[in-house]
């Protein structure tokens, strides 16, 4: 964060106090959104947000900024559609420009089986409030003239779905908007402050140890990405989470406007154009569990091979930069939100490769849970105890990556 940005956004950094009502570990989108909604919706401002680096330096700054709700199960469609709606009104609510740009998401299929799944998804989406239409190859060609419908002869485009309200927003601005909204209402956002331990007494949280001293609190929310298990290990909680790296890259700028976000389900890649005109691409998460931020040339090779098969114009572009984030992958590819067996300790995790789009709804719902003590209906299906109750929400096919 530099002086130019600080002059545009009213960020008021606080000093660590000895006690808070609520401590949020993780100063990314989800942590700051929770603090923002606690302050704006529930008047709870005695809140600290701990951030090990600078705000938005984790996965909030490493994603591909796609906002969509075309999920495959009712609980997810409802939740992500609510998040999409909150993103649409965030600029009006905060009077800050997050560069929200509605583009539509085109999701292509190359097999008959994939097409049947996609038709079911379109029906499911409309039934639960997300605007998704089944489209033919001719309609795809009209939406994105650059698509090679023969898929290089190997992956013919047989059809797909078009999710009308799919959008992108500037990730940093989303983080700063929530940070500013929380800070001006009195929330302390503490950068370069690492949570080193969580104190419990009789199964109840009593405080958080940081490298700047102890904070007494009754409520702790873990909103970290990648390092969730590092935090839950502090309270001896077992989590169904494994950490995997996810990579992405951008090219130099493409001279024409490339409007929708284009993804291929079977090839597992997605392409969109950034506000600068760069083409942004991502693909699957790395197979090996790892906390490493290392970017690899293997990824560039496999992802570009897939993307140029369907969008041949990309082969004329040059790769400018690449980056890696580390994701919390849950066994059913759905997030884990809410209360845990440790009283006063809550989690917002399992965001895997689908966390950015959920920032507003995740923050709003967690804030309501913290403020009222009751789990809102919208996130009740995503509780941690769904695994032992055998109520898993398997939706890996909607992640866009595998």
């Amino acid at each position, binding site marked *: 964060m530099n002086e130019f940005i600080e002059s545009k956004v009213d960020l008021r950094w606080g000093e660590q106090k000895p006690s808070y009502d609520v401590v949020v570990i993780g100063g990314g989108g989800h942590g700051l959104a929770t603090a923002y909604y606690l302050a704006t919706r529930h008047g709870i401002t005695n809140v600290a947000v701990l951030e090990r680096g600078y705000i938005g330096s984790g996965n909030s700054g490493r994603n591909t900024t796609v906002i969509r709700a075309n999920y495959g199960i009712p609980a997810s469609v409802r939740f992500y559609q609510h998040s999409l709606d909150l993103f649409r009104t965030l600029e009006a609510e905060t009077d800050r420009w997050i560069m929200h740009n509605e583009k539509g998401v085109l999701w292509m299929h190359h097999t008959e089986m994939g097409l049947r799944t996609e038709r079911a998804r379109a029906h499911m989406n409309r039934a639960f409030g997300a605007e998704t239409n089944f489209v033919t190859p001719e309609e795809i060609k009209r939406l994105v003239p650059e698509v090679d419908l023969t898929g290089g002869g190997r992956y013919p485009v047989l059809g797909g779905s078009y999710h009308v309200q799919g959008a992108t927003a500037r990730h940093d601005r989303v983080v700063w908007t929530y940070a500013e909204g929380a800070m001006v209402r009195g929330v302390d956002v503490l950068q370069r402050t690492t949570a080193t331990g969580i104190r419990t007494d009789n199964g109840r949280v009593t405080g958080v140890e940081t490298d700047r001293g102890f904070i007494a609190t009754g409520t702790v929310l873990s909103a970290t990405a990648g390092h969730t298990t590092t935090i839950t290990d502090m309270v001896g909680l*077992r*989590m169904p*989470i494994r950490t995997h790296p996810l990579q992405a890259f951008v090219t130099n700028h493409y001279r024409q406007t490339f409007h929708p976000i284009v993804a291929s389900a079977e090839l597992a890649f997605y392409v969109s154009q950034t506000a600068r005109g760069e083409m942004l691409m991502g693909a699957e998460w790395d197979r*090996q569990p*790892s*906390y490493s931020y*290392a970017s690899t040339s293997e990824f560039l090779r*496999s992802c570009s091979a897939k993307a140029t098969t369907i969008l041949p114009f990309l082969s004329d572009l040059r790769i400018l930069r690449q980056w890696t984030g580390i994701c919390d992958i849950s066994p059913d590819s759905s997030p884990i939100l809410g209360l845990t067996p440790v009283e006063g300790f809550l989690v917002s995790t399992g965001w895997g490769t689908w966390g950015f789009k959920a920032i507003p709804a995740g923050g709003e719902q967690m804030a309501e849970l913290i403020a009222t003590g009751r789990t809102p209906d919208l996130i009740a299906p995503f509780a941690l105890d769904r*695994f032992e109750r055998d109520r898993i929400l398997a939706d890996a096919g909607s992640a866009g990556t595998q």
Partner: protein
Amino acid sequence: MKLTCPNCGARSVEEFRYGEIPRVPDSISDPDARDVDRVYMKTNPHGITVEAWFHDFGCRRWFRLERDTRL
């Protein structure tokens, strides 16, 4: 990233399949809770760990590998 297969030598990670070794903590005694832990819960170690890998596009054998998840 390369992994060293005991039969085939150092090969690209793309040739392998990851296999998890469930590590249910001894502190869990209830049999049902142990089953839940075995199926869903992960140890997710941050550091050196022993894993099972299958060499899909090579010798097609399982082997154990010591690896640092921070690298």
